[in-house]
């Protein structure tokens, strides 16, 4: 295995996650997955479950690190935090399936929960619309909003001027907005 557990310090990991650094994220993923998979497999789960839980948990810690909800001061390492999240998610899943999936509107809901669910639905729709964008648009948006590259780097990659890059970014967003508008009219 190329990676060892001690490749990055805690602060390096957090910084890498904040910056959406692929190397750090991939390293964290491959080094922590086996433990989580083991837990799930020995708890009535499948490899498919393990993959889903792993990816969902990574998104959770990613969001929490970015928002500052999780910091180094929490005393626990990122890895431990990730494992805890994954474990809880799995236990929730087991509990939910035991209850035979009580329908959403019967569950004890609140304003916050409903808003969150609403947002989830919007995001799901948006995701499929996003994936229907052309490769170039997705590459532009990925570089701007995920990799957070600067204008000159992106322009250089596509061999555009910075003005053109900016303009194309705007157009791609417009495309996405138009698609979103169309779904609302359905």
């Amino acid at each position: 295995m190329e990676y060892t557990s001690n490749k990055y310090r805690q602060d390096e990991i957090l910084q890498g996650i904040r910056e959406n650094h692929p190397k750090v994220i991939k390293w964290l993923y491959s080094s922590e997955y086996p433990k989580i998979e083991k837990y799930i497999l020995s708890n009535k789960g499948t490899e498919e479950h393990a993959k889903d839980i792993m990816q969902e948990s990574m998104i959770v810690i990613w969001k929490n690190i970015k928002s500052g909800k999780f910091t180094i001061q929490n005393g626990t390492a990122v890895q431990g935090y990730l494992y805890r999240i994954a474990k809880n998610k799995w236990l929730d899943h087991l509990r939910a399936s035991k209850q035979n999936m009580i329908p959403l509107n019967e569950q004890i809901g609140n304003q916050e929960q409903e808003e969150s669910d609403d947002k989830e639905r919007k995001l799901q729709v948006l995701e499929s619309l996003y994936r229907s964008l052309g490769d170039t648009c997705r590459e532009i948006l990925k570089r701007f909003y995920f990799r957070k590259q600067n204008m000159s780097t992106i322009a250089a990659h596509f061999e555009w001027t910075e003005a053109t890059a900016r303009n194309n970014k705007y157009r791609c967003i417009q495309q996405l907005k138009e698609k979103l508008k169309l779904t609302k009219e359905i």
Partner: protein
Amino acid sequence: MYSAAKGETKTDERNLTNLENNHHISQEQFERIEKYLSGDLPRSEADALEKEKAHNPEFKAQVEEIKLILSGVEEFEMKGLLEEAHGEMVSAKEDFKQTPTITIWKTIAWAASLALLMFVSITLWDKLFTEESDLFAQYYEADPGLVTAMSSETNYEFDRGMVDYKSGKYEEAIVRWEKLIRDRPENDTLQYFLGSAHLALKKTETAIFHLNEVLKNEDSAFAEEALWYLGLAYLKSGEEEEAIKIFRRSQHARASEIVNELLEK
């Protein structure tokens, strides 16, 4: 932009227009909101924007929508990265799993086949170049047989057998002579030529038998020849030790030569 009184056509029209316009935002406006969301707007401009949000619900909606889109894009790409991470991890695991195992098996298979190859080639080499039959072929020349008139026994059947023998029909000669030897086992001529005929057919075991019978009689006229051919018979049958012993007793011109060759092996 909102009118307190609902139902006013003018306001409604304006609202509709605004709603339509909600999706047509200028690049400038978009970039301004984008900067605001990423925290890159100067403080004063950011404050101004927040004021506008508070007073203009459509504007607020626009800002919210862009916020949703941009954070959505970031999250979708993160999901993509996680998929990629999983894929790479799986294939790395497979490579890791395969490599040492396959290497071990490959090594074993290779070593085994090499060992086999070496064994086979050594054996073959041995057979090809130092084969007893090769040595045998070098030294063996079938006894030419008797000129019929010289046979000590005037025996029609024996002569006919000899005719067969001399023309290479060893099986026929053997058939004739074996009929005779039943009644005359002590006849060294018969024994000798039966031995000779069998040896010509490479039937070494029987040849050895008959030639030994000849040698039971030390005074036999065929003793020397029998000794020589006995040695060759042992050689052909792979009994080199015996062959050497026999050849050492032999006075044959090439006896010592063949002994040396056998000893060199």
